[in-house]
């Protein structure tokens, strides 16, 4: 899923400082799972903004709505009535949701309440870690199911750099070296010889470097 984190409260409050009425829009997709922008977080943010503004003597009216997904036009359409008479929409979705609302309501001021961080998963209650670099050409079959593109700080494809020591990455003792993990796993699987094979330069055009990407499933289009 996409993992996001709420922006500092003061930053969000600043985005809507000149508004009198706002729609605070949550999303029940990934950001609800990572506790950043679900129904609960949406209501907390709305209440906090209202209280903050009341203390400033400039009361703010809030409307809340939590979409099933903000990354699907039909669910963004569903908030049309609420969007109509607000000065701004504060979206608690990932960057996709914010853009979907902005696209659907071109004359509306739409601001992000979250920082979209990474594609990852939960490793313990309340803890999430990055796992996928969205590079567009998966190589996990060559690396024992551990992604060096995103889990190695330098995206190395041919083994660990000289900064890998005691299983940790040179950037921090809290970051495991992806290549140590790959090595250990390939060793356990009896496939170490795979790591001797030279991996040629990656085709980054399939990643974000190739410009905005698009996926089409012909059979699914109408």
């Amino acid at each position: 899923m996409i993992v996001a984190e709420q922006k500092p409260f003061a930053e969000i409050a600043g985005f809507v400082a000149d508004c009198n009425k706002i729609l605070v829009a949550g999303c029940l997709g990934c950001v609800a799972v990572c506790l950043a922008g679900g129904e609960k977080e949406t209501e907390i943010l709305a209440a906090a903004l209202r209280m903050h503004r009341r203390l400033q003597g400039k009361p703010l009216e809030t409307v809340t709505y939590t979409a099933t997904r903000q990354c699907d036009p039909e669910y963004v359409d569903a908030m049309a009535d609420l969007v109509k008479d607000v000065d701004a929409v504060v979206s608690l979705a990932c960057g996709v949701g914010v853009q979907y609302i902005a696209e659907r309501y071109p004359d509306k001021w739409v601001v992000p309440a979250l920082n979209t961080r990474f594609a990852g998963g939960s490793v313990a209650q309340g803890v999430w870690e990055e796992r996928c670099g969205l590079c567009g050409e998966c190589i996990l079959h060559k690396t024992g199911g551990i992604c060096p593109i995103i889990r190695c700080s330098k995206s190395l494809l041919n083994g660990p750099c000289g900064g890998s020591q005691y299983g940790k990455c040179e950037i921090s003792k809290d970051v495991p070296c992806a290549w140590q993990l790959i090595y250990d796993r390939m060793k356990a699987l009896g496939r170490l010889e795979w790591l001797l094979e030279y991996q040629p330069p990656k085709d980054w055009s399939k990643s974000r470097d190739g410009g905005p990407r698009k996926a089409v499933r012909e059979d699914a289009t109408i």
Partner: protein
Amino acid sequence: MFEPRIVAFCCHYCAYSAADLAGSMRLQYAPNIRVVEMPCSGTIDARVILAAFEDGADGVYVAGCLEGDCHFLKGNFRAKKRVHYVKKLLDDIGLGGERLEFYNLSAAMGTRFAEIANEMTERIKNLGPSPLKAKEVAGA
């Protein structure tokens, strides 16, 4: 004289029973406390705390069992972390985290319950009325 309104979210297994005990013991304590019984302090939700303040509370506290004694094992630890989170949010909002507190006590601590009620009342009296309320009045 300012008489604060304080909401106390009390766990059924400890603080709430301690309140009962305080009553049976005929202990005198500040009448400013409004007790809300909860099945466990761990069920406390940031939204409820915020709603209390938004609707006029001058102070709020959550009272759970002594550490290690939670009927649901870890509910009180969760409550403590959540209260800590909301305290920070109250600072961000500008209301001030010191209007919110978390306490641990047991069902046998009737005296301690009364103490906490007095302590919190005293703290909020010193802080004065919730500025949210003042703004409401001024705005009205």
